[in-house]
């Protein structure tokens, strides 16, 4: 047993090293004063200063945040409806089709999603003049479509693992369907909705391929700007940007974990 544990720990440890070594290297090199990756020029914050003076990156970041915020909000509304319908409405006509349309976007190659949505927008524009041109609006629609699938899956998982007795009790006490949903079900699934919102936000913020297809001229999102920069090679400003993004995400995940553990401990305490 002991020998196998050693083997297991070593191989899993190597796996984690593989997962984190590139990220750590990226963070360390973002503080490198030298432009060359290979030469260590001492610690410096110079790339962070350059990053904040780069108007192109700042503008693209603001646009991406705006798109991600609207996308995440729309995706949460639509995705919660879809997840709720699939797990609480019992059988209805076309349910198989809906659940297929929910799971397919999760694995669909992005180039196909991007191309097909662009062709739809072009066809719609020539048929009834909407959407007039492409830009922020079309990116939001495209992102909402694949993000709502993630939200629906998360909400569905939460609903199916949840005890139904509270909803039954509310119904027995005569709650109307709408108040049953908004007063009982919605608060119970709020953790799933929050993580769905956050996941949609990061997915939208990160998307390069779909946005490249459906955006118009002058609407470059942050990933599009990063991609055109790094295609030519390693750029120290991008290292700085990556470090900031990783820091924000790490703080978010650690905060969420801490909150969850605190909640679990509170729940575990017996009532006095």
């Amino acid at each position, binding site marked *: 047993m002991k020998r196998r544990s050693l083997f297991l720990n070593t191989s899993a440890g190597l796996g984690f090293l593989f997962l984190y070594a590139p990220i750590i290297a990226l963070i360390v090199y973002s503080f490198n004063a030298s432009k060359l990756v290979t030469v260590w020029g001492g610690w410096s914050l110079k790339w962070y200063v350059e990053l904040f003076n780069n108007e192109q990156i700042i503008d693209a970041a603001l646009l991406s945040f705006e798109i991600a915020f609207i996308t995440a909000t729309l995706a949460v509304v639509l995705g919660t409806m879809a997840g709720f319908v699939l797990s609480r409405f019992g059988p209805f006509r076309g349910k198989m089709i809906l659940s*297929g349309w929910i799971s397919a976007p999760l694995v669909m190659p992005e*180039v196909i999603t991007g191309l097909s949505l662009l062709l739809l927008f072009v066809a719609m524009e020539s048929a009834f003049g909407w959407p007039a041109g492409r830009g922020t609006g079309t990116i939001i629609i495209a992102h909402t479509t694949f993000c709502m699938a993630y939200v629906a899956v998360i909400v569905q998982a939460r609903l199916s693992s949840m005890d139904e007795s509270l909803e039954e009790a509310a119904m027995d006490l005569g709650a109307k369907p709408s108040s049953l949903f908004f007063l009982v079900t919605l608060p119970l699934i709020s953790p799933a909705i929050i993580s769905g919102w956050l996941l949609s936000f990061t997915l939208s913020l990160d998307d390069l391929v779909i946005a490249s297809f459906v955006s118009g001229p002058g609407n470059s999102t942050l990933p599009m700007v990063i991609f055109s920069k790094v295609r030519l090679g390693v750029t120290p400003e991008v*290292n700085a940007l990556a470090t900031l993004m990783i820091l924000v995400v790490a703080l978010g995940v650690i905060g969420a974990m801490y909150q969850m553990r605190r909640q679990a401990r509170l729940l575990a305490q017996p009532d006095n």
Partner: protein
Amino acid sequence: MSTSKIAWINDSYGKMTKYNFFSRVNWGRFSVVSVPYLWLAIFFFIPFVVVFKISLSEAAIAVPPYTPILDWNLEEAYVTLKLSLSNYLFLLEDDFYLSAYLSSIKVAAISTFFTLLVAFPIAYLMARSEGSMRALLLALVILPFWTSFLLRVYAWMGLLKKNGLINETLMSMGLIDQPLIMMQTDFAVYIGIVYTYLPFMVLPLYSALEKMDMTLLEAAEDLGARPYQSFFLITLPLAMPGVIAGCLLVFIPAVGEFVIPALLGGSDTLMIGRVLWDEFFLNRDWPMASAVAVVMLIILVLPIMLIRNSQGKEGAV
């Protein structure tokens, strides 16, 4: 959706489903169903019909840059329907496309296999850990998933390039004299895919291994099974649903991957996602790009159906 869930729905359908309540207020129920339904019909399903339609037209110098399929003129009273299979014929005739499809499938399959190799020990360790250790390992696996995909691919450029960190370290240790050529090779593409898709493999594996009864392994050991025997005869078969779900979750998007071959691959790394991208953005041949997408979709239909079934059984993801 789990089987018990289906049973519950069938069960409660006979009695009083909690939201069966809606069936009396049919309009409320109808509108809640139809909003997500309509959205997905318009922005997920119809686009595929449009792609298929445009794949049957021909490229033209016009806005939009393809010929109409259906043409009519009421004054002269004619309707013409012009379907062109030339894009598909060209796809079949030109070796370039065929080898791009084959090499995408090859790259995706090899990377999926290596992802499984890297992910298994991590998932197994997670499943065997307890309490806060398990939560910590889970967070460590999920954390990179929340950071930018593009930036994670980019991180490897700094490690793999000719004067990058790996080459410099190996040379300063005196292990190699010449820098290894790693960037712009298929090897870099494998690394990129394994790295970015790892969480998609670990999580379904973990959810399958977590359910495993560890006493089975003790029993096997008591009965004289060697560790590798109990692994192949007990652990692996029990983890199979997770293995299948994880492999499909990695394989399907990897076939159409664009960013990884574009940043880490060389000019000879032929992948169909990149071919589609170039066909669209460089050649501006929209009908050809559509035909490439339709054929890719046909190749992926079977694995996508499989993932739906395995999701149905396991509730992975």
